[in-house]
């Protein structure tokens, strides 16, 4: 029972001994995460989310390079954390090129190269898409960016902990990740920045994170994220194989047993746990809710936009019509799923699709030869 006359008990930025212990914990976890990513500890910056990391990377470079140029290259299928940030910057006078993708959701390197201008200050392209799972050729784009001398950021929120993510192999200058995607806590993330070089701060204030990101550190979540990442990486190969097998089982079942259905995303370059389908003639939310009533949780659109009524920008970008996009549902498998889960889904899904199609005037219209889709 010793007296602590301080409101900064355990505040890692303070000089006293408890603060120093806290700082040591942070540094240890920072080093562990760095090693997993192929980075140096001083290149790892803790944030409170993947969204914050994306915003910081993009707005930071934009604000710091305004005089040098005002052109940013990204894609039309980024997560809203990137897309809405870029749209905001457009309102602030920046110019943004949103690269198209092919019907599998892939960006072409030629398109990236053609989009580069003298005043391009940043390229930001996601590693894998959260809705359709398509994995982009990040290493090749990174090489191109390097040859042009343009900083390259990737949103690796969907891939970190799931498939190998090494900043050197990927040729990236900045990379965002979020702990809750690999069973870590919700509310913590990382921005990796080569040589610790980011643009302007997003959050100014105290000297935390090498003066680059103010705010008292969230040590429990830093430890939680680091531990979760460690575990995810240790079991990555095993989990990847298992999850991919379950995913492929769902995909081949759906494609072989349900009519008028489309697999969205790339057939092979896709996240191991992602299966995204468009069921023609029915609407996704209804399908979701019927699955939910059977205890099966899936998602339509992306989690963040499910409050909205517009169909997913990603599905529109791969060329789906509005009506087909509306009928899309994503099954995201993790290592916690089992063959039993998959069998249960295979049991339930055809009947639900049939029920909803029976209610649908589009499906019946189709049968009458009056095809709306």
């Amino acid at each position: 029972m010793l007296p602590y006359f301080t409101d900064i008990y355990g505040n890692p930025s303070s000089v006293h001994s408890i603060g120093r212990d806290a700082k040591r914990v942070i540094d240890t976890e920072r080093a562990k995460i760095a090693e997993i990513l192929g980075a140096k500890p001083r290149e790892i910056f803790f944030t409170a989310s993947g969204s914050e990391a994306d915003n910081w990377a993009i707005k930071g470079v934009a604000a710091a390079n305004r005089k040098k140029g005002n052109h940013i290259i990204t894609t039309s299928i980024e997560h809203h954390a990137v897309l809405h940030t870029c749209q905001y910057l457009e309102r602030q006078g920046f110019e943004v090129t949103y690269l198209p993708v092919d019907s599998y959701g892939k960006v072409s390197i030629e398109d990236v190269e053609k989009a580069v201008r003298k005043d391009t200050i940043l390229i930001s392209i996601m590693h894998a898409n959260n809705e359709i799972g398509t994995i982009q050729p990040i290493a090749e784009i990174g090489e191109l960016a390097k040859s042009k001398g343009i900083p390259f950021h990737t949103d690796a929120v969907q891939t970190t902990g799931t498939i190998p993510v090494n900043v050197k192999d990927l040729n990236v200058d900045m990379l965002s990740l979020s702990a809750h995607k690999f069973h870590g806590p919700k509310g913590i993330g990382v921005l990796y920045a080569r040589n610790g070089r980011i643009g302007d701060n997003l959050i100014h204030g105290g000297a935390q994170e090498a003066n680059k990101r103010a705010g008292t550190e969230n040590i429990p979540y830093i430890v939680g994220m680091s531990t979760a990442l460690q575990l995810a990486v240790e079991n990555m190969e095993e989990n990847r194989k298992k999850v991919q097998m379950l995913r492929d089982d769902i995909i081949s079942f759906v494609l072989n047993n349900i009519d008028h259905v489309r697999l969205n995303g790339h057939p092979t370059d896709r996240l191991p746990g992602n299966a995204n389908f468009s069921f023609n003639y029915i609407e996704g939310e209804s399908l979701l809710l019927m699955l939910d009533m059977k205890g099966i949780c899936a998602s339509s659109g992306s989690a963040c936009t499910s409050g909205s009524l517009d169909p997913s920008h990603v599905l529109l970008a791969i060329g789906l019509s509005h009506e087909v996009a509306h009928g899309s549902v994503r099954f995201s498998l993790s290592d916690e799923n089992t063959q039993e889960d998959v069998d249960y889904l295979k049991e339930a899904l055809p009947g639900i699709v049939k029920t909803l199609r029976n209610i649908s005037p589009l499906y019946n219209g189709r049968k009458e030869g009056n095809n709306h889709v």
Partner: protein
Amino acid sequence: MYSEVVMDHFANPRNVGVIENPDGVGQVGNAKCGDIMKIYLKIENETIVDVKFQTFGCAAAIASSSMATEMIKGKSVDEALAITNKAVLEALQGLPPAKIHCSLLAEEAIHAAIMDYRLKTGGSVDNIRKCDGCCNACDIEHDHVV
């Protein structure tokens, strides 16, 4: 998110189907908006003796169709025209703000089906709305309760 009444009408929708040779049929909404509602009416002596619907749309759209068809079954055509989306909303114990347009869609589908009936039978179409019910698709200022 949804009331128990909505969930019941979504899971067990009443009056799903098609009426062969209907006296009135109306379809509103479009697939781009994410909602299409089609209503079939069987009318005898200005009374709605049978009604069926088909809906492409979210749970709120399906439940609104189911509830609205229940509400007009056995009513006179004029009584049916007097049923607003507000009444449907109340019967459903409310809908989330983003889904209120679905109740409007049900009102519009009824009006469209009755319009078809009136045009076929030569009746007055004065008290019938002509909006297609897809909120993003039309620029009409609505005086509905939304």
